[in-house]
């Protein structure tokens, strides 16, 4: 039976004691009257060693970039350099309160410098670091687009999104009250003819990922840009796949007006099991007045928080962004520099193309043209489903690729090796996939070697047990 942390404890056992209070005791009961609660809480009572054993055990049952090849398409699971961790543990940054403005100059300078770097990499004119994740950046970007059109007296209520897009694109657009208009792909890319039919004076924006989720560069980008801009719409760049383009091409030069970065993808900050991420937003001059407050600006050698922005959309987060994540990205860009960034993108693209060729006789590759940093394979003609392949890979110590995405490819396996893997790792991976497709019987019921076998997701969703209290009730 799996032990929860509660199960390791005993009543009255303690794992940590705070310093003894040296100031006079206040009677909270008297202070609060009816608003006081004496209720004891059903929380673990464990020693420090119990806690250490428990979470060390959990760590041992978790795949990670540090322990496993993690070719999860669209997520850019590159290596997270250790110097980044050193930086984020520096007490001078870590312990400063964001409202102690006078104490924050160093942090503000790091943020300002990061904005500058991101502008150079993206070809944008200004960047805000406030959005706390990619999807949060998307939402912020759409709010900027909305504010821009409102400010220009235009009532545009449609956002055009390709059918290959990430699910967050339509979800973010819908959150801002936009009607989502889907544009179909042709040969894996935006069908320009159809796009022309879909734009109108209702078009607020087109959201585009480039390279797109199939790993293909939208080669008609200049024409796409013209079509949308001529109709009075703006173009949004989903920065999920920026890792292909650092030092190669910029969204700014491609004509994009607004974009978000995923620092946890392109700029090597760790994914942390699902977060924290960071989703800075870059804009061209025309959108700069609408950036969230406060804007971090430099005036006479001093970096300041500028709140005096009357056209700003307002705040989108408590403070100035996920500073601890921004700091890591800053270190990454500093260490890599011009050549390093270009090299990272080049090796990411080379690795993806190399692995694609190695897999050509193993899986279907529905779009055979040149891939960028990732590619989509399909097991449509194989005897194993994408899910079965994914689960079988786990037994060999590989994290699975992204499966069943993008939606326009059946039995899709989206593979992104990233630049930090060696060719040997890619060769081994290809060999393993061949083996998996040979050993059909074993593969079909995989995984066999993991801590658990396949899970009953129907049961989990039908009768949800989301807390320990619900678990006990259920027994």
């Amino acid at each position, binding site marked *: 039976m799996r032990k929860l942390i509660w199960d390791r404890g005993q009543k009255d056992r303690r794992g940590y004691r705070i310093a003894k209070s040296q100031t006079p005791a206040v009677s909270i009961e008297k202070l609060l009257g009816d608003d006081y609660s004496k209720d004891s809480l059903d929380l673990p009572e464990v020693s420090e060693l119990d806690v250490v054993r428990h979470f060390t055990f959990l760590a041992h049952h978790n795949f990670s970039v540090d322990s496993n090849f993690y070719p999860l398409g669209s997520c850019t699971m590159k290596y997270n350099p250790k110097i980044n961790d050193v930086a984020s543990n520096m007490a001078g940054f870590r312990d400063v309160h964001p409202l102690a403005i006078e104490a924050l100059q160093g942090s503000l300078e790091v943020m300002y410098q990061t904005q500058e770097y991101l502008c150079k990499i993206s070809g944008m004119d200004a960047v805000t670091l406030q959005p706390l994740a990619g999807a949060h950046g998307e939402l912020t970007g759409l709010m900027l687009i909305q504010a821009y059109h409102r400010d220009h007296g235009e009532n545009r209520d449609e956002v055009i999104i390709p059918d290959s897009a990430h699910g967050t694109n339509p979800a973010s657009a819908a959150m801002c009250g936009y009607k989502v208009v889907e544009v179909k792909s042709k040969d894996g890319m935006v069908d320009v003819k159809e796009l022309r039919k879909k734009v109108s004076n209702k078009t607020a924006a087109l959201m585009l990922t480039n390279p797109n989720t199939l790993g293909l560069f939208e080669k008609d980008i200049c024409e796409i840009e013209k079509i949308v801009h001529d109709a009075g719409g703006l173009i949004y760049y989903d920065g999920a796949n920026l890792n292909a383009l650092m030092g190669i091409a910029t969204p700014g030069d491609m004509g994009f007006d607004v974009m978000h970065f995923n620092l946890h993808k392109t700029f090597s900050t760790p994914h942390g099991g699902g977060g924290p991420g960071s989703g800075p937003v870059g804009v061209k001059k025309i959108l700069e007045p609408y950036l969230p407050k406060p804007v971090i600006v430099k005036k006479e050698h001093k970096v300041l928080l500028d709140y005096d922005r009357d056209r700003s959309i307002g705040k989108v987060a408590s403070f100035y962004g996920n500073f601890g994540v921004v700091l890591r990205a800053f270190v990454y860009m500093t260490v890599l520099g011009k050549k390093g960034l270009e090299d990272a993108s080049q090796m990411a693209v080379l690795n993806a193309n190399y692995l694609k060729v190695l897999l050509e006789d193993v899986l279907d590759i529905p779009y055979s043209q040149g891939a960028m940093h990732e590619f989509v394979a399909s097991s449509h003609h194989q005897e194993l489903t994408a899910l079965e392949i994914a689960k079988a890979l786990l037994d060999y110590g590989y994290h699975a690729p992204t499966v069943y995405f993008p939606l326009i490819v059946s039995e899709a396996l989206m593979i992104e090796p990233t630049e930090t893997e060696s060719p040997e790792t890619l060769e081994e991976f290809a060999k393993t996939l061949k083996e998996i497709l040979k050993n059909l019987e074993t593969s079909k019921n995989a995984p066999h070697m993991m801590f658990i076998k396949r899970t009953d997701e129907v049961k989990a969703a*039908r009768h949800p047990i989301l807390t320990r209290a619900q678990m006990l009730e259920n027994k």
Partner: protein
Amino acid sequence: MSKIPSELRYTRTHEWVKVDGDKVIVGITDYAQSELGDVVFVELPSEGDDFEAGSEIATIESVKGVSEIYAPADGVVVEVNEELENVPELINEDPYKDGWVYTFKVEDMSVLEDLLTADEYEAVIKKEE
């Protein structure tokens, strides 16, 4: 091959409709449930709520997807199948009987004549397949 009972009427959005006096009983078709897979949750309307034809009236969730049920005509919800709250799998097991979703009092019964017959519905799903 999915079941399409001939005595029922159908919508293009894969609901079945059975006329019962001055009201109708509505559920999703066998084809719809097999496309959705294991149903895990059904969000039901409240009794007495009124809806316009074509508006969302209930939501059916499976592990891999979500499907809306739309009102077949203007009308008022009379009764909902509360059993589905605890046993959503009834929709998979018996979509045409125990898996019914709601009964509905339709303002103008004549609009129901526009619904599909079993043969017409069969043609619709053939096309989708």
